[in-house]
């Protein structure tokens, strides 16, 4: 009797395992495309046409930023709700249904992307951000919608579990992992409204030919309405791991349960009304709106800074219980040989660095320096590429035995893998940040120009390229070791000697947390109000300036044959009018 997850929840373990494997498949393909891009961009090895680079880049972005992260997330969140509520999912068929929908969505999205490599008419080399008027095949947008709907249903699944649990435990506090799942899910529901609106109202009808044009600034703004909070959606499972798993692996307890709840509530209310900070350099949005987005973004630093303290304090608690002493000497007492710990700790360290480049990105006028340069790429390879990905890989070494019932293939290889990732990313993202400061743009197949060169104050661009290529090679090697371990573990036979399915206890428990923290309705309402404040005026201004369907709205031919078009425009206008009215009423009430 080992008490692993698969023994307690055999049916759920299968879904979680399937989600993890889907996530790893995306990681494998996305990672392969990563090294292809690294070598192409730096000019070390170019075997394809530069036009195909953008197809590779689209696949890299979508597969890693969306597929890899979110499949892993649904696996972790399903584990978290079932474990912390100590109850199976309400209906396993429903669980498989949303998983299936997510897979279908991914496949439908991938088809037009990969068709970009062939001679067919179909393509969707529009990158992860799919800014109109670049147009992808309708299947691309449709697949994305199905994927997002799949995640919505996954959220319903977790909420069902919680509601059912609440009936049986009316007076208990929401267990911390479930609390994290629920707040993150609520944030996701609000955030995805932006991308759903962008795709369903505008991009999909436009790619199908139902409407003639779109307003590029509007769809772009709606994208970033979703595009910034999505980074917190990737990050929250990593945060959850740092809060509920890392203290335990360190040999200690979570420093403060109430503050962990505060942090997740702050993410729920502050994640969405910040997206405009990706648009600091967009013409058509007034400086005032940009300033508001900046203050919101800056305050969003707070939960991350609080997390830094709580997580490090939890590790310190573990270290001191293991005999650690001194101001810094306790660091030696941490279990560095454990790949799960070492991976998460290194990921956290990288996130501290990422926090700094993120602070620069959050600054309004300093954005002129870094906007759309390689700096930004360096930044998100530290956040999603290390803080999230390395944490996911590290906890995989803990999760795999839990969901397969088999011992990890090799702990030494695992330790080497996480260290290699850290070193590889150090080289790569450091050179990316530095390159960005020289003005080297992101998203380009050949950052080598005819009329001018990038001037480095120290070293040279060639040296930065060498660092990037070296880093990319180390990361690829690290990925190979990771997959060797995953496959090796899957081929292992069942083991009876595995750690139990447990997460960290707390020093300051939920009883210390004010009850109001568990009032999800209140926080959701506040989140929605903040979103309305931050977004209604910019959106109305954009629509007023450029029209719902872009500058050509007045010339839009209403085709009698289709008729659909007219219907569409009418519906959208009505919806918007209703929205405006609602906003006016709210504004009136609040003033």
């Amino acid at each position, binding site marked *: 009797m080992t008490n692993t997850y698969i023994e307690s929840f055999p049916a759920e373990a299968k879904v979680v395992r399937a989600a993890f494997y889907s996530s790893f498949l995306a990681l494998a393909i996305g990672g392969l495309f990563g090294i292809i891009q690294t070598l192409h961009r730096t000019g070390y090895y170019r075997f394809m046409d530069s036009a195909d680079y953008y197809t590779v880049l689209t696949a890299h972005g979508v597969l890693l930023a969306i597929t890899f992260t979110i499949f892993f997330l649904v696996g972790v969140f399903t584990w978290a709700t079932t474990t912390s509520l100590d109850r199976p999912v309400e209906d396993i068929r429903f669980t498989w249904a949303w998983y299936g929908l997510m897979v279908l969505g991914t496949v439908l999205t991938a088809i037009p992307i990969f068709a970009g490599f062939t001679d067919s008419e179909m393509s969707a080399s529009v990158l992860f951000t799919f800014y109109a008027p670049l147009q992808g095949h309708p299947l691309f947008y449709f697949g994305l919608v199905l994927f997002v709907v799949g995640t919505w249903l996954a959220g319903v699944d977790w909420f069902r579990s919680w509601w059912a649990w609440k009936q049986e435990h009316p007076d208990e506090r929401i*267990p911390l992992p479930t609390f994290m799942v629920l707040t993150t899910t609520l944030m996701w529901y609000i955030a995805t409204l932006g991308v759903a609106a962008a795709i369903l109202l505008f991009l999909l009808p436009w790619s199908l030919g139902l409407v003639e044009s779109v307003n590029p600034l509007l769809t772009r703004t709606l994208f970033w309405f979703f595009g910034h909070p999505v980074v917190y959606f990737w990050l929250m499972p990593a945060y959850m791991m740092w809060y509920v798993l890392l203290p*335990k692996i360190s*040999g*200690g*307890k979570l*420093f403060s349960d109430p503050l962990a709840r505060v942090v997740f509530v702050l993410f729920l209310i502050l994640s969405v009304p910040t997206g405009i900070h990706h648009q600091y350099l967009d013409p058509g949005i007034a400086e005032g709106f940009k300033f508001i987005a900046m203050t919101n973004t800056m305050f969003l630093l707070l939960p991350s800074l609080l997390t*830094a*303290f709580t997580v*490090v*304090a939890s590790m*310190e*608690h573990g*270290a*001191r*219980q*293991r*005999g*650690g002493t*001194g*101001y*810094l000497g*306790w*660091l030696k007492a941490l*279990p560095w040989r454990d790949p799960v710990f070492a991976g998460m700790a290194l990921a956290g360290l990288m996130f*501290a660095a990422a*926090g*700094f480049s993120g*602070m*620069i990105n959050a*600054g309004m*006028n*300093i954005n*002129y*320096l870094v906007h759309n340069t390689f700096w930004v790429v360096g930044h998100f390879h530290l956040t999603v590429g290390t803080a999230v990905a390395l944490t996911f890989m590290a906890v995989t070494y803990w999760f795999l035995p839990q969901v397969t019932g088999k011992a990890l293939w090799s702990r030494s290889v695992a330790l080497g893998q996480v260290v290699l990732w850290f070193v590889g990313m150090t080289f790569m993202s450091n050179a990316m940040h530095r390159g960005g*400061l020289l003005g080297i743009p992101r998203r380009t197949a050949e950052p080598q120009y005819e009329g001018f060169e990038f001037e480095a104050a120290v070293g040279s661009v060639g040296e930065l390229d060498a660092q990037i290529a070296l880093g990319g090679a180390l990361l690829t090697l690290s990925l190979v070791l990771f997959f060797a371990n995953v496959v090796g573990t899957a081929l292992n036979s069942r083991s009876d000697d595995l*750690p*139990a399915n*447990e*997460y*960290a*206890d*707390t*020093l*300051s*428990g939920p009883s210390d947390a004010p009850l109001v923290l568990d009032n999800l309705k209140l926080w959701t309402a506040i989140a929605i109000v903040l979103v309305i404040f931050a977004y209604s005026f910019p959106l109305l201004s954009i629509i007023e300036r450029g029209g719902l369907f872009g500058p050509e709205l007045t010339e839009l031919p209403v085709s009698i044959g289709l008729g659909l078009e007219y219907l569409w425009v009418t519906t959208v206008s009505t919806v918007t009018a209703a929205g405006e009215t609602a906003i006016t009423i709210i504004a009136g009430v609040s003033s």
Partner: protein
Amino acid sequence: MSQTAEHEASNETSEHVREIGHDEFDPIGTLTLIGIYFLILVFLWFFMYFVEFLGNDPTVVSGTLVFLATGERLA
């Protein structure tokens, strides 16, 4: 979750030298580390803003202010 704690204690006694409760724990090491991080952040922020950013001339400025500045320079 108290159940979890018991498991943890029994599982990892070999690694545990002592048990530290809530009131006896002062995360002085965390304060030290995060204090260093704070200083790095402050230094790098000023470096990035005043050296890297403002040293990266020219910068987008509002017309009127520059006009005043130019007027002064010409005078």
